[in-house]
């Protein structure tokens, strides 16, 4: 294998492993903001316990996210130095801004958030939680903006093969940035809400920590119910954006070979794409569906893949399937939330065991959808590293393949090990369950706090 393929595999593996952790960081941070707000507002001890429990998971997750993320910042230089050289003037400030405005913020206040309970007053602690959550979202903004620039470059002029800045604002807010940032942040929030809901549902099914898990589940479900429909909407917006700016990618995602000249383009629900013969072997279609979806009219024209030369087409089979499975997960989660709304209406939310088990089963699917989404967008950009302007093969470092073989093997050993240990300690923390009894630090105890014992007594009286 040559150094291009090896470097691409390594970058794919390191990003795909890394992204799992920030996804949970972004969503769980917002969840913790909500929980701490409720704690400060209602003064119910339960919220404090919920916060402390999920903060433990948050801390383990954050630690792995940080160290795996550092790798990516280096890989642009070590593995894709010619790309970095060509785009540095436009691209590098976005990465540096991410460090300055997001990483420092997260790292600076994480210490207070996790270890500061006895050291700072309530307000400062809440502020720390808010700033960590803000930092995680700002980080998502910059890194997706940088990636969006590679997808839909703007604000530059090409001078002797180097991209020179003409307008930073346009480079940052290039045509796809806003849509893609929203889609990614929402993916993180939705995924995390389902993680919280799924784990809480499991406790409830096992009859453990009833009050704790009901409350934790409720907050998770309210967030999930909000995010699931919103994400379907944002996903649709992303699709339209791809249609306008990356027609070859859209055509490959939809396995759409021929440009429709008379009438609308059909939406292909299922097909087996055959790239060699430029057709689909088997199709289930909705007439005019694709035109309606991306052009908002029944006979809008959608460019087919055949309009692009063979070596400028992305891999149809990967794109078609990864995109479809991502969409399927999105709709599945939406349906689960519709079911949740009905159960809530019938006041059977915590009693319906089938529903609770469903939550447990679907809880990791958000991660899968996020990975498939990134696979779609990144494989869909190929063969370009900067869309339509610079080929991936032109961006590689002048290093021997042996270097990358060596580091790739190490990543292939280290990441599964780190991942397995991460799982082990997360499961251990989940097994141990929430700590409902250790004393609350005096600086944090609000006046008139409603303790867990009081809640229990009131229930008995009722």
């Amino acid at each position, binding site marked *: 294998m040559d150094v291009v393929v090896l470097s691409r595999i390594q970058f794919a593996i390191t990003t795909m492993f890394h992204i799992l952790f920030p996804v949970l960081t972004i969503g769980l941070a917002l969840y913790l903001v909500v929980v701490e707000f409720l704690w400060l507002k209602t003064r119910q001890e339960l919220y404090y316990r919920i916060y402390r429990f999920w903060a433990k998971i948050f*801390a*383990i997750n954050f*630690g*792995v996210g*940080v*160290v*795996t993320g*550092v*790798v990516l*910042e*280096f890989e*642009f*230089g*070590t*593995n894709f*130095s*010619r790309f*970095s050289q060509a785009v*540095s*003037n*436009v691209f*590098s*400030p976005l990465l*540096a*801004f*991410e*460090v*300055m405005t997001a*990483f*420092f*913020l997260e*790292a*600076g*206040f*994480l*210490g*207070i958030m*996790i*270890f*500061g309970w*006895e*050291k*700072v007053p309530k307000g400062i602690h809440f502020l720390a939680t808010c700033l960590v959550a803000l930092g995680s979202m700002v980080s998502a903004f910059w890194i997706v903006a940088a990636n969006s620039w590679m997808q839909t470059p703007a604000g530059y002029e090409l001078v002797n093969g180097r991209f*020179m*800045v003409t307008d*930073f604002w346009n480079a940052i807010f290039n045509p796809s940035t806003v849509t893609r940032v929203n889609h990614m942040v929402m993916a993180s929030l939705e995924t995390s809400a389902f993680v919280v809901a799924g784990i809480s549902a499991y406790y409830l099914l096992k009859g453990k920590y009833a009050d704790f898990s009901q409350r934790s589940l409720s907050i998770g479900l309210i967030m999930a119910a909000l995010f699931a429909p919103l994400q379907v909407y944002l996903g649709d917006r992303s699709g339209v954006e791809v249609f306008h700016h990356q027609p070859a990618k859209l055509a490959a995602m939809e396995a759409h070979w021929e440009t429709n000249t008379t009438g609308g383009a059909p939406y292909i629900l299922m097909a087996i794409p055959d790239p060699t013969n430029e057709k689909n072997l088997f199709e289930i279609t909705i007439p005019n569906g694709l035109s309606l979806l991306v052009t908002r009219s029944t006979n809008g024209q959608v460019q087919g893949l055949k309009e692009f030369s063979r070596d400028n087409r992305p891999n149809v089979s990967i794109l078609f399937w990864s995109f479809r499975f991502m969409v399927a997960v999105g709709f599945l989660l939406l349906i689960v939330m519709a079911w949740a709304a009905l159960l809530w209406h019938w006041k059977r939310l915590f009693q319906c065991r089938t529903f609770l088990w469903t939550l447990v089963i679907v809880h990791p699917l958000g991660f899968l959808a996020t990975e498939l989404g990134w696979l779609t967008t990144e494989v869909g950009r190929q063969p370009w590293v900067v869309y339509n302007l610079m080929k991936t093969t032109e961006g590689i*470092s*002048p*290093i*021997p393949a042996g*270097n990358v073989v*060596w*580091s790739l093997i*190490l990543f292939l050993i*280290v990441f599964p090990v780190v991942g397995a*240990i*991460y799982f082990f*300690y997360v499961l*251990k923390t989940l097994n141990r369950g929430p700590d409902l009894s250790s004393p609350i*630090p005096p600086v944090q105890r609000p006046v008139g706090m409603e303790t867990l014992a009081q809640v229990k007594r009131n229930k008995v009286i009722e």
Partner: protein
Amino acid sequence: MDFVVAWACLLALVFILYVILDGFSLGIGLLFPSARNEEERDLMMSSIAPVWDANQTWLVFGGGAIFVAFPTVYTVLFPALYIPLMTLLFGLIFRGVTFEFRANATRKQKWSRAFFFGSLVAVVSQGLTLGGVISGTTVVEGQFAGGPFDWFNPFSVFVGIALVAGYTLLGATYLIIKTRGEVQHRAYRQAFWSAIIVLACQVIVTVWTPLHYPVVLTYWLNPPRIYFIWIFPLMGLSAFYGLMKNLKNRHEFLPFVCTVILFLAGYLGLISSLYPFAIPPAVTFREASAQKETLRLGFWAVIIVLPVVLSYTVYSYSIFRGKVSKEGYHY
């Protein structure tokens, strides 16, 4: 305004901040085997647990800042130093995950070992990287044109060893501030011995550099450098004297301050000997710099944001000031 010079100064500031902040954090990892039991290691780890991540972020920022201001340095040195940079990353991964994993573990010993080895690999890799940069890189038409092991030579190995001693010293003097009793007592001894090795290493590097690059000697002996270059060894020697004195008097805070000055002396001496070269022996900062618009935007962004970052960093340190207690910090 000359943004190239301004950025060179900014980068110098960022890297010394990284070296000192992550230096004591890595140094504590290097001192891990010397602790008698896991309770002592808990204490050592607690002293850095709330700040290590922020400290390490300076490295990421340093990488990003080079990419912004001197893209040629980023795109030439990173492929050239592929192997030590990757081992640095693997070291940092192992070390970084240990903080959370060890805190959750029942048997902590194996994680203590991982923390030590991760730190050691990271520190030696940093030394090899730095040594590799100083010993020179082959550049043809703005691209790296050397072999995968060009960074590996006696000099870079020596710098690797020197950095182990240097970070050990930073770690020990930091522990003196944060601990008491047996751990502190031992840290005084460790600081004493590592300081002597550090001084010896600095002397050797000072002699070795002009032997490797005869041009450096010409630099030293001619204006403008001849007017100020001698300040750095003088500064280093006074810092060393102060360090020894304060260690002997069992002062708690000043040994760390003296160590920082000792580091500064070596650091400033090195960069003022190699300036204006960003990639020795051939590429200058000006040749390696980015487009002016990028330099300007980046510079003002840093000037606005960095003071904010520094102030909440100081705030965070002030919250966790004082001796670290046996229970450490609670989760």
